[in-house]
């Protein structure tokens, strides 16, 4: 069971969280401008590294805030990353 550091609540057990996959995949600023391949990549393709991986979690059974961590997918060692602020889109 992973222990995950919520930036707002501190260290909590994995069962309090939901996984959100790769971090920093922005919703395209203008989806209509993307060709089908680029849009398909946005929808379906994510990095899948063995090693350090910036990923998103949401503290569903706690503060319900989304945040980003960096975890080594080979060892599950985690280090916290600051919550990412996003630029406006659309």
């Amino acid at each position, binding site marked *: 069971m992973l222990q995950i550091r919520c930036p707002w609540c501190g260290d909590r057990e994995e069962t309090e969280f939901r996984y959100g*996959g790769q971090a920093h995949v922005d919703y395209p600023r203008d989806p209509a401008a993307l060709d089908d391949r680029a849009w398909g990549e946005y929808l*379906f*393709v994510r990095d899948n590294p063995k090693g350090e991986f910036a990923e998103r979690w949401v503290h569903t059974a706690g503060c319900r805030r989304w945040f980003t961590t960096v975890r080594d997918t080979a060892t599950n060692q985690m280090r916290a990353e600051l919550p990412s602020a996003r630029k406006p889109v659309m």
Partner: protein
Amino acid sequence: MVTSRHALPDPPARLWRNPEPKRSYDVVIVGAGGHGLATAYYLARNHGIRDIAVLERGWLAGGNMARNTTIIRSNYLLDASAALYDHALQLWEQLPDELEYDFLLSQRGVLNLAHTEQEVRDSRRRAFANELNGVDAEWVTPDEIAEICPILNTSADLRYPVLGATLQRRAGIAKHDHVAWALARKSDEMGVDLIQECEVTGFLTEGDRVTGVQTTAGPIAAGRVGLAAAGRTSLLTDTLGIRLPLQSHPLQALVSELLEPVHPCVVMSNHVHVYCSQAHKGELVLGAGVDSYNGYAHRGSVHVIENQLAAAVELFPIFARAHVVRTWAGTVDVTPDASPIIGPTPYENLFVNCGWGTGGFKATPGAGWVFAHTIATGEPHPLNAPYGMERFTTGALVDEHGAAAVAH
């Protein structure tokens, strides 16, 4: 020397050579799991290609082939899936004779339980579709389930009562290690070099053409390269800049101690997340869904096991005092539509067979058959034509989620 009914048949006294790799092969298969071995076998058997190396970073069939829960079935909803998996099931039925190896294929039937009215609708939809696709399937009521599997709790008091199930009688289990060894032995006999502890670390390329692989034992040239590396596929394709819609997740399973036979079939429940059979030796084999996060660590989280055992004890009250003696995890590569990717890549002479998620074992011979065809001819077999990478661009997904057929 073995006499008891709990013993498995003695495996063969000769399985494979342990050759040194040659500098060049017509075909190099990356990954000596079930799919890699089956691909090599069918390349040799169906296409007359014998100059093949199967390169394995660890020990042969030591990845998901060694870690799965050995369930075989073909009762998938969608036409493309049913065709592919049932082709596999037909091959399974031939293989013990063809490979001259009793790998304990046991067509004891698989029950897929429905616990809600919507699951009933979904299950019946799948069974009706199976019937029209020529895949054997029946809808069975709780009373019939009680006859088929008397230890299953069909009481209406269950938190999520069993409202019915689909039954595929031709489905069942096989002894996973022995399947791999049977394929390995025949492939080896036909001249395929099975090379263990030889990790592929990258590719040799000329422009947009793959000409071989880089390995821990040096470069090996290849006319064609087929990837059958499951959870590690995208690590390899990443080196060429090919982005595949794959996410690697831990998938856990467990076994109990040996028990006298009590469980006659295979039972799967998506709703409460558990599936269970009793293997030939007598151990209960249980699995559940994947762990939520990406991972290559061959370990999952224990709460997944706890949830799965809570579900198991609900469905099978007599298992309450059985013991977990071993848990383990594999790394499965999951696609967005829970269907595999089998086909060519943007690189000439490089082919992928991946994204089987939790369903790879049951497809072993079918995947090998169509992947061998794809590698040998350069074109997909009709059975894997719907499984190309382009579907993620066009939107023509082969989405099995809708039919609640994702657990294996």
